[in-house]
């Protein structure tokens, strides 16, 4: 094998200041070779981002670095600032999470793309324009000659991130560090960006470190994987080995707790407990309090296992790595049932919630007189029903109006038109007082558990608040009821007097759920309830929601952008695009035989945590981005990005109607399964 581009040995990073030192990275070794993508996977607090910052020398002053980081012949930990600065431009390219803040808003994109090369004297300023156009063309930005003079705000999110990739690759660096490069992007845009990144990597032969929490992304693009936990690498090996033959219980836990788009589990197997706080690491093996095979054996509690070889190129830091094979074999195949088998009976009887032609339009005001100059059609004719005890998933990319739909149903945003019937009662025409009463049996769970709890109230008071508001505290059982609610969501009664800031994200979300359950609702509207949580915690919350549904007979309207999570939890699924539902069906039908081209591309764009699928899967990479809902395209809103679009789609709006032969309704002139229609046009890759 050739010389590694980057070689990290015994890297330790400790943050000092503010009390006792916090070890964020504790002894990390790895190499990255040319023409290789190394995926570093871990949850929050695992030290993955700190590792990348240490490599580039961008750590804050409070960090103390030990160990060795060699990039080619240069020891980065001893290099002075000037050399590091030189290397950052020429030898190391960086791609950060948020393209909106990586680009400077006051300079043109073209100028920024070649800024580094001009500064390092690699190209002359006069030739920079030409080079910028070339670089933008290489990352598939349409019309690079025109775009080169535009400013970042004129670019969409996906184009910005591609421009950032162009910028990082401009000087043909030997190493590229991509820190969560697609986390802020929608799934169809993520697919574009990942394919551009992979293409450019192959063209330049650079080494890439891809840092992410998303196992699907890793399976999609990485060659080798390092799994980090508690500031150390706990397992490393080729991507196929990691996914097929994991040798660390944490990796197994991650794989099992992940809802998957390619199959359906009855139930997820979450890793119990919380990821450790770097300031308070457990003794011995940092994973032992959450480990299913350690069984509290003494050595796990007292001795930190070293990273040792368990295969030719496969390393694991577990005392009982050999036993992990059995754990994985026991858990994975038998529990995994082919998706088509699992289908729950459709709910009978009248629907609990019936939304018909819901519209929410926001006025756009401009000028000194604040006159209305147009409308943002956030929700533009949405119809859906939720039966008692049923889970309906509402999926779509950001800006499609799914959250607005949820809030309008809840009455938090006024509906412009259409009807919302809850339990047979029309709620859009109720007075505020009547609405408050009617809403008792409909509750809302927010996405961000960090901001949805009042920071100055104890969690006991927060959960009791709805009872006090409705004057039902005594009637519903007072303090005993609160304790009962906490036990229902799996929190001990001892935490009642504590404040929200003392809890982790998953625990806060549990408190949010307890609050929503206080009034004994029949319908919960869940707005991205697990999007802000780590994978292992996400599985705990999803399981809790499923248990509560069974126990209390709740109906869920589950709003999310993550198609895998929605597949796992829903009975029926509706797909939204630009304020409208484009397809709605039974879960199995929608995922197995989608008929709307948008659903088909959405499903094909989701990264699957299975490295073998890379070759076999057909990918539809959509062009462009979601249009502005203030200026929607004519005819079918999806036609500018659609691979089946014809002249008819440009002028005529398709009706939302049943598709013959399937329990599906869709809004498309050319609806049909992918094989039947899609093969006509060469849009897949």
């Amino acid at each position, binding site marked *: 094998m050739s010389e590694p581009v980057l070689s990290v040995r015994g890297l330790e990073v400790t943050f000092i200041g503010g009390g006792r030192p916090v070890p964020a990275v504790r002894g990390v070794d790895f190499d990255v070779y040319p023409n290789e993508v190394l995926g570093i996977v871990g949850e929050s607090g695992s030290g993955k981002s700190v590792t990348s910052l240490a490599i580039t020398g961008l750590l804050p002053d409070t960090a103390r670095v030990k160990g060795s980081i060699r990039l080619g012949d240069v020891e980065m930990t001893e290099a002075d600032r000037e050399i590091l600065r030189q290397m950052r431009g020429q030898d190391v390219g960086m791609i950060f999470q948020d393209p909106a803040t990586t680009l400077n808003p006051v300079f043109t994109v073209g100028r920024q793309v070649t800024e580094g090369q001009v500064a390092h004297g690699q190209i002359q300023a006069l030739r920079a324009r030409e080079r910028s156009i070339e670089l933008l063309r290489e990352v598939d930005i349409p019309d690079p000659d025109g775009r080169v003079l535009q400013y970042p705000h004129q670019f969409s999110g996906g184009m910005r991130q591609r421009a950032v990739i162009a910028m990082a690759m401009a000087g043909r660096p030997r190493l590229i560090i991509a820190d969560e490069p697609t986390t802020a992007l929608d799934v169809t845009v993520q697919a574009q960006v990942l394919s551009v990144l992979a293409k450019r990597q192959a063209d330049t032969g650079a080494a890439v470190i891809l840092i992410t929490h998303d196992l699907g992304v890793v399976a999609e693009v990485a060659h080798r994987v390092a799994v980090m936990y508690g500031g150390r690498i706990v397992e490393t090996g080729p991507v196929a080995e990691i996914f097929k033959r994991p040798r660390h219980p944490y990796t197994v836990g991650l794989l099992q707790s992940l809802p998957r788009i390619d199959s359906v589990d009855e139930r997820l197997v979450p890793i119990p407990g919380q990821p450790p706080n770097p300031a308070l690491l457990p003794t011995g093996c940092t994973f032992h309090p959450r480990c299913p095979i350690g069984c509290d054996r003494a050595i796990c509690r007292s001795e930190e296992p070293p990273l040792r070889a368990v295969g030719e190129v496969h390393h694991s830091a577990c005392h009982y790595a050999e036993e992990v094979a059995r754990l994985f074999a026991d858990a994975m195949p038998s529990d995994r049932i082919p998706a088509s088998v699992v289908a729950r009976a459709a709910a009978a009887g009248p629907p609990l919630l019936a939304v018909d032609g819901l519209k929410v339009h926001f006025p756009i005001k401009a000028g000194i007189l604040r006159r209305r100059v147009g409308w943002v059609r956030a929700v533009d004719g949405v119809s859906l029903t939720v039966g008692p005890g049923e889970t309906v998933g509402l999926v779509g990319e950001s800006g499609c109006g799914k959250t607005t739909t949820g809030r309008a149903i809840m009455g938090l945003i006024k509906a412009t038109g259409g009807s919302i019937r809850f339990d047979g009662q029309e709620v859009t025409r109720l007075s505020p007082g009547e609405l408050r009463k009617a809403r008792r049996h409909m509750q809302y769970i927010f996405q961000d558990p960090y901001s949805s709890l009042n920071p*100055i109230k104890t969690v006991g008071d927060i959960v009791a608040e709805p009872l006090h508001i409705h004057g039902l505290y005594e009637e519903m059982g007072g303090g005993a009821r609160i304790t009962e609610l906490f036990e229902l969501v799996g929190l001990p009664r001892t935490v009642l007097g504590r404040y929200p800031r003392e809890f982790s994200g998953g625990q806060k979300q549990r408190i949010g759920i307890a609050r929503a359950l206080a009034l004994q609702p029949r319908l919960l509207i869940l707005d991205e309830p697990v999007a802000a949580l780590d994978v292992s915690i996400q599985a705990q919350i999803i399981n809790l929601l499923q248990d509560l549904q069974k126990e209390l007979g709740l109906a869920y309207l589950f709003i999310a952008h993550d198609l895998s999570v929605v597949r796992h939890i829903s009975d029926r699924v509706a797909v939204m695009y630009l304020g409208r539902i484009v397809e709605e069906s039974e879960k199995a039908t929608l995922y197995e035989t989608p008929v709307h081209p948008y659903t088909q591309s959405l499903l094909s764009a989701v990264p699957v945590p299975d490295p073998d699928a890379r070759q076999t899967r057909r990918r539809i990479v959509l062009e462009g981005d979601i249009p502005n809902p203030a200026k929607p395209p004519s005819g079918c809103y999806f036609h500018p990005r659609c691979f089946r679009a014809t002249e008819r789609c440009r002028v005529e709006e398709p009706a939302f109607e049943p598709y013959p032969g399937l329990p599906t309704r869709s809004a498309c002139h050319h609806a049909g399964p992918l094989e039947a229609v899609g093969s006509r046009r060469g849009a897949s890759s």
Partner: protein
Amino acid sequence: MSGGVQRSLDLARRVFARKGALLSILYLAAIALVAMLARWVVPFDPVAQNLMSTLEPPSTAHWFGTDELGRDIMTRVVYGARTSLLTASGAVIIAGTIGVPVGLVAGFFGGWRDAVLMRIVDVLLSLPGILFAMALIAVLGRSQLAALVAVGITGIPSFARITRAQVLSLRKRDFVMAVEALGGSSAYNMFRTVLPNSWSPILVQIVILSSIAILLEAALAFLGVGIPPPTPSWGEMLRTGKSYLYDAPYYAVLPGIVLTLTILSLDTLGRTLAWVLEDRHELAEEAAPDRMVP
């Protein structure tokens, strides 16, 4: 509200940890204490004249000396503190009880209520404070109450604006919307959720307005339109003392030092509070371990 008590204790602990703030608090506490216990602290009558011993320099009997009417200057400084503190607290109460609800309603509901209320506040803000106070005193006559009301009214806009800004940022937070979703009325949400989360900047503003009020009261007295004599006032003492600046420099200088230190202490305390409260806000968010990397 045991939570409120605990938070206050926590805040106090963090303020006391800073030396400047600690000194300021000790100084202000001393001023407040002697003002309240004036009769037992200083042996003289603040208004009784003794023309036998006028303009005496500091001595063991009269630590700050005597004025042109033979009154003990230290006694008058101590009683003057009463005037200052009374004006400050009165002004804060007036400005707060009007300004905070105005800002709360304007920020919470927005729309026409916001437009109307804030335009009224803008009108108040456009009046120069001291001129407005003088005009009001010209109408009401010189009295403790007139000075206090005048200063209080000029303080309304700052309370309204600060409360409104805080409410606007809270209004967008999920936990406020959560209470709405749970069926809480607007009034409940405003007073039980938003207001208790708005105290930090209001507390800072209370300290800042106290300092402005004391200074404005002194300025009015210095211009001869403040509290009428013989009630002792620091501004009044500066005004009379400046005529004797050559014969008895201590007459104006000593009350001036006391006034300066009071303002300095209040400003230090205000700055520290603002700093500590902002810092506390960040601490609340630190729970997520990945936040350690900036």
